[in-house]
């Protein structure tokens, strides 16, 4: 894929795959979600972002996918300045990211299989190739036998795994997950975190926001803590 090669090329120039420098995010009305946030993530790292709700975790992750734009400062993702990126370029950035949303955003008018197919359909893969990759992704999260099921018929943990399958089907270099374990009980949450760890082990950079400190105590990963928009 030619699009992927430019990504590798640019990461070899800058060692960091994600880099925030002096990032501010102000919402209309004056509320400051992020204040002077600077940090960087190297390729292949697994980073947890913690903090109370409203501390700015979701905002921070949204800036990576250009879902929101920084008010000031620079957000570099794979060597590209996301905060000043042209609108037309954004879809091509997102194709290299695996995004897992807090509200899941599954489509309930189609099967689990079709949900996972969507990122490939959108990028114009042939149906045969897309179907093969979608099944591989479903297999990785252990949902291959549920591919015909409607997402509404899946349990909470299964829905979350479906979201992960959809996020990784494009073989992204970066996985960004917003509170992926929020509504799950401990066993399911552990399984989900374990899944992210296995993707990380094959070289995918992983960013996970959570207010659950169990996996952090268990894995002892790198942790960024947000407190009222400030990086502690």
């Amino acid at each position: 894929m030619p699009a992927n090669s430019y990504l590798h090329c640019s990461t070899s120039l800058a060692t960091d795959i994600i880099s925030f420098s002096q990032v501010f995010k102000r919402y209309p009305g004056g509320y400051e979600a992020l204040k002077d946030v600077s940090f960087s993530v190297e390729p292949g790292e697994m980073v947890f972002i913690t903090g109370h709700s409203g501390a700015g975790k979701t905002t921070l992750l949204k800036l990576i996918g250009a879902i929101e734009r920084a008010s000031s400062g620079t957000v570099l993702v794979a060597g590209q300045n996301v905060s000043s990126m042209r609108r037309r370029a954004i879809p091509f950035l997102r194709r290299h990211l695996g995004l897992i949303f807090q509200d899941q955003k599954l489509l309930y008018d189609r099967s689990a299989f079709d949900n996972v197919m969507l990122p490939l359909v959108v990028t114009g893969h042939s149906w045969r190739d897309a179907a093969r990759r979608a099944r591989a992704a479903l297999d990785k999260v252990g949902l291959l036998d549920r591919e015909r099921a409607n997402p509404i018929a899946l349990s909470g943990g299964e829905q979350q795994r479906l979201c992960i399958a959809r996020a990784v089907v494009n073989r992204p270099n970066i996985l960004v997950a917003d509170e992926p374990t929020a509504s799950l009980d401990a066993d399911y949450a552990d399984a989900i975190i374990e899944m992210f760890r296995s993707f990380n082990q094959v070289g995918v950079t992983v960013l996970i926001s959570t207010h659950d400190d169990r996996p952090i105590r268990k894995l002892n990963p790198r942790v960024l803590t947000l407190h009222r928009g400030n990086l502690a």
Partner: protein
Amino acid sequence: MRRFAANPFASLLNAVVIGVALALPLGGYVLLANLQHFARGLVTDAQISVFLAPDASKSDITEIDRRLRGTPGVTRVEFVGREQALAGLKRTPGMAEVVATLPDNPLPDAFVVTLAENEPELARRLEQEIKNLPRVAHVQADSAWVQRVSSLLNFGRTTVVLMAALLSFALVAVTFNTIRLQILTQRGEIELSKLIGATDAYIRRPFFYLGALQGVFGGLAAWVMVELAIFVLNRDLVGLATLYGANAKLQPLGLTDGLAVLAFAAALGWLGTFLSVSRHLHQIEQE
């Protein structure tokens, strides 16, 4: 197409609404074309009456007759002598007594000139030309009738154009609304598609297909409606025509005109989609 088929009833209704909106001006157009055709057959005998001076001699009459026949745009020249005209007048009920009181024949010699075409412009021009011939006392063009028909047709044409313009707006509005509803229904899918790397063009494309397709179906519905109306009207006209011994029949819409209607409807559908998509996808973007 999948979306059109997904909700056949609503899609059909939309096509019918667009069809009715298009059928009105289209029907008007067909009726007008037929009227024009009919009027041409009816008024080809546009005439000019040429009255000669009382002192016109036999040789003057021959000369004028020759000149009239030589004028381009004239198909028939008929001489009506003063005696002949008087005899005709005597035959008119109530006029015989009046004529009897006259000491001598007050009528001039006259020509009735039939024109080749039912053109008010031509009638006016010939009227001027004939007026300048020697020994011609008075020229009366029956172009008033020609002009009246012509301006009536113009009036009809303007009405049809206005109606078409107005109802085109309706078509654009209907499409605008259909696409708006469709965007709202698919809001989740659109938002997600954007988040997983779909380009704007990718998201817009199916809506354009939908809008244009709906326009085509509407145009098709209009075509069918107009043809059906012509079929029904013709059945009545046959009865009417046999009563009057005339041959009146409405001509259906030609293939070229029909295809033009389809293309026009598709273009309007496209326009409605463009307006709707620009507005509503932008709204989704902002939230």
